[in-house]
């Protein structure tokens, strides 16, 4: 595997930590322990990235490729991302405890500005057998897919090249009016994106 550069790692921490917050809130909304566990795994992953970043940044300073000020700025930004990841883990922790979730948790997440939705892709849906990039789903419906379930397999933070198959379950977030559109597309009621 190619060694990731400092900039790449910082961006990865940023993206992954934001994904974790989304996943954590949706784990509560759908009372889903599998998603909550993924948040835990991602938190380990981010810890590793962060340690890796610390080493690389210091090496760059030693080789005079990065100033001390820049190095500190980069590390502090990554640290904030790490904190956000920790917060996401705290949220997921609530789902993983053996305590009934208070109904208010679901209601609050449901009523917020950004909605989460879960939908199964029907065989006659135009989403089936296409990649997220081909569909331009995010820019056409406003709904960003944060996780997918393919049979027994789960996929978190899918990319442009991720293919949707009939029977997949999509977890997405976005505006309220985008939710309906996505559901209709997935159920095959709307044949045009």
């Amino acid at each position, binding site marked *: 595997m190619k060694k990731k550069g400092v900039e790449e790692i910082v961006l990865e921490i940023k993206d992954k930590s934001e994904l974790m917050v989304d996943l954590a809130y949706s784990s509560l909304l759908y009372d889903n322990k599998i998603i909550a566990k993924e948040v835990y795994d991602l938190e380990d992953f981010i810890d590793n990235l962060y340690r890796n970043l610390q080493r690389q940044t210091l090496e760059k300073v030693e080789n005079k490729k990065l100033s001390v000020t820049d190095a500190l700025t980069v590390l502090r930004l990554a640290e904030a991302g790490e904190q956000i990841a920790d*917060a996401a883990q*705290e949220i997921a922790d*609530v789902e993983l405890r053996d305590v009934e979730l*208070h109904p208010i948790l679901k209601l609050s997440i449901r*009523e917020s500005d*950004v909605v989460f939705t879960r939908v199964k892709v029907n065989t006659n849906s135009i989403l089936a057998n296409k990649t997220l990039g081909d569909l331009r789903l*995010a820019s056409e419906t*406003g709904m960003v897919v944060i996780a997918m379930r393919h049979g027994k397999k789960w996929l978190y933070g899918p990319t442009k090249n991720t293919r949707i198959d009939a029977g997949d379950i999509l977890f997405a977030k976005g505006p309220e*009016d985008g939710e309906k559109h996505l559901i209709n597309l997935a159920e095959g009621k709307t044949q045009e994106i």
Partner: protein
Amino acid sequence: MTEQKRKKIFGRLQRTPKWKKEEFSELEYEPKPVKELLTEMKDISELIIDLAYSAVLFNNEEMAEEVRYLDVQMDKLNYDIRMMAMMAARTKEDAEELAGILQVAEAAETISNAAGDIVNLLSKDKSVPILPKILKQADEELFRIKVSSASEACDNKIGKLRVESETGMRIIAIRREDCWIYNPQSDTPIKAEDWLIVRGTNEGYDELKKFLQGQLRALE
């Protein structure tokens, strides 16, 4: 919190608030539904991350101030929700369930603190800052677009234009003359000469930019 109170924080035209004045203002017990408090905390926790990264990307001190203000609001909401939860607990089961709510609230508060740390990285000197250079390469980017008077968007509400569901671009903030509207709501109108701070993909940005510059008649 009632719909009216929510509006006090979101979707209104405002000058950059003086968060410092509010930082240690007195807290009083005032009954508010836990659900409304938690919804507001969740909304802030999502907005504040985007705002913080935007402030750094555009090296904008005013947006940084708004982040600090929201961070202070978050502290207060966290205090309120703790008081409400204590008042609501009657049984052992109540306590168990309410503890979960408080943990989520605490996490939202941690996120807003992290956002506060991010805006403190705004470069004070004139040298080329490193963070904008890095953040520009992100997959889902933050952009600034100016609204032309020729655009069909002018004087139309964001909800009616269906900006987010048509382009995938989420409007994080609007700058209107020397005022800001953070987290505009669906009934917030767009006006000529507004600057929008938006988040989304490159494709969505291209479409929205054309629309706001008047080169595209409608979003579809």
